[in-house]
């Protein structure tokens, strides 16, 4: 539940749709210009936007914060943020990985690749700035930071066997 679907609008931008548990549909149109439209679909004709509110990029951010939640945690897969020449990536630890189940000290990820683990996110909670005794549990998400090559190498170690 709560997953948004995405459709391209050629020449305009992208539309995201979300269907609520209660059966209403809402959407957001992200224009190439940065403008956002908050759209509410008609109950009788689910394809029709009966209400469309135009928002600037900033207003969109504010509304997003008001609606709560940490949007980063909602798209854990394949999210990569770039800061100058550093990359932050959210990597789901695969059970195939030889590092799965090891503590950070045992895994020696930073020594091997140059990339560090900034946080671990598990179902039971998240560990910011984990220490050497924290474990890389399979299924948890490691927030990895480093230069692109290092993050790529770390991602490989955490997701693939051997």
């Amino acid at each position, binding site marked *: 539940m709560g997953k948004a*679907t*995405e*459709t*391209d*609008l*050629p*020449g*305009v931008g992208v*539309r995201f*749709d979300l*269907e609520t548990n*209660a*059966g209403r*549909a809402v*959407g957001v*149109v992200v224009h*190439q*210009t940065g403008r956002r*439209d908050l*759209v509410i*679909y008609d*109950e*009788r*004709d*689910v*394809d*029709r*936007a009966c209400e*469309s509110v135009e928002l600037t990029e900033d207003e969109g951010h504010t509304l997003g914060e008001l609606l709560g939640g940490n949007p980063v945690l909602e798209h854990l897969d394949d999210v990569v943020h770039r800061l100058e020449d550093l990359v932050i990536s959210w990597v789901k630890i695969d059970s195939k990985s030889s590092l799965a189940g090891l503590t950070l000290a045992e895994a020696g990820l930073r020594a091997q690749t140059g990339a560090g683990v900034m946080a671990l996110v598990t179902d039971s909670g998240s560990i910011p700035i984990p220490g050497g005794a924290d474990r890389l549990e399979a299924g948890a998400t490691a927030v990895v930071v480093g230069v692109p090559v290092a993050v790529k190498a770390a991602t490989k170690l955490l997701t693939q066997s051997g």
Partner: protein
Amino acid sequence: MHTASDLFVIELGAVVLVLAIVARLARRIGLPALPLYLLVGLALGDGGLVELPASTEFIEVGAEIGVILMLLMLGLEFSAHELIDNVRRSTLAGVVDLALNFPPGFVAGLLLGFDPIVAVLLGGVTYISSSGIVAKLVADLDRIGNHETPVILSVLVIEDLAMVLYLPIVSGVLFGGSLLSTTVTVTVSLIVVIAVLGAAYLFGDRLSAIALSQSSEALLLTLLGGTLLFAGIAGRLNLSTAVGAFVVGVALSGDIVSHARGLLLPLRNLFAAVFFVFFGLQVDIGLLPDVAVAAVVIAVVTIATKFATGWIGARRAAIGKPGRARAGAALIAHGEFSIVIAELGITRESDLGALAAAYVIILTLAGAVLYQYSDSITLRAPRGVDRRRWQGTSRLAKGQSKRRWSLTR
């Protein structure tokens, strides 16, 4: 003292003011201004109410610039990547569109006794909807978020791309000499178009970075100069200036696009209006009664075929009946491209100009009205609405939205 240039300025000022009045009128009644510009053009010039001896020459040059700017702005809306992705996704909708909407014009052209190549032009006139008018209608009516809108936009994009191949072919045939030399010209021009689009795909970013400037004056001059030069060369090679300008627009991407849009929009609005007036000027009003019946028949047939195109496309995307009706109605409006195509053949077959003008006026007005009121037609008549959707249980709606996904992505 009176000079020729005073007279020219007076004429031009009067024409532009008349356009301003009709643009206001169109806005007041909620219709596109294009058909009214055509009517102004028809009313002026040879056989019309007032002749324009001093400014016709300028209007002719302005019209040429108008086509180039319209196509440049259209190209700016898309990046090469977006175009190619879209073709992959919506080929079928594009084929249906072509199969339903090209034949009515082509057959009508043959029945009216036009040359085959002029019939091909008339097929193009009926085939292509107006990206400009339709996109504006969608935005003005706040329907960008509607589920059928991607279907509409995809069809428009495919049509615009089809023009990139169609215009060089028909220009090659129209202006070429013998069969052999025509074949050679057409082949060469198609290879050039594909090569330029490929280059735009690969090097567009770099080109955009070079053209970008902090000074809006420098940027405007760069864009205008570069586009006119490139479009002119493309025209020289029988590729059509329109296609040349479109390709320049497609090649530009990134930061430059939003700056360019802001700078070019006022110029585009002026010169596009001049283009429609010029087209109207060339049409002999005396021919209108002769072509009126044909124009109405072709209009009625293609309103039905365009409606079917949108309906089929939206149905494939698992959209309900009201949405299908909106998609169908949206595609009816014809405009700038139909006129650009008819303009190519107007010297060869004078009836084509009158026919296309009447046809475009009918379709644009009908399309705008039907698209605006399609909801009140379908939603008021439960018989025309899918009843399950009308009642809309959430379980059903969810299943349908999933199906939509697998089809459109």
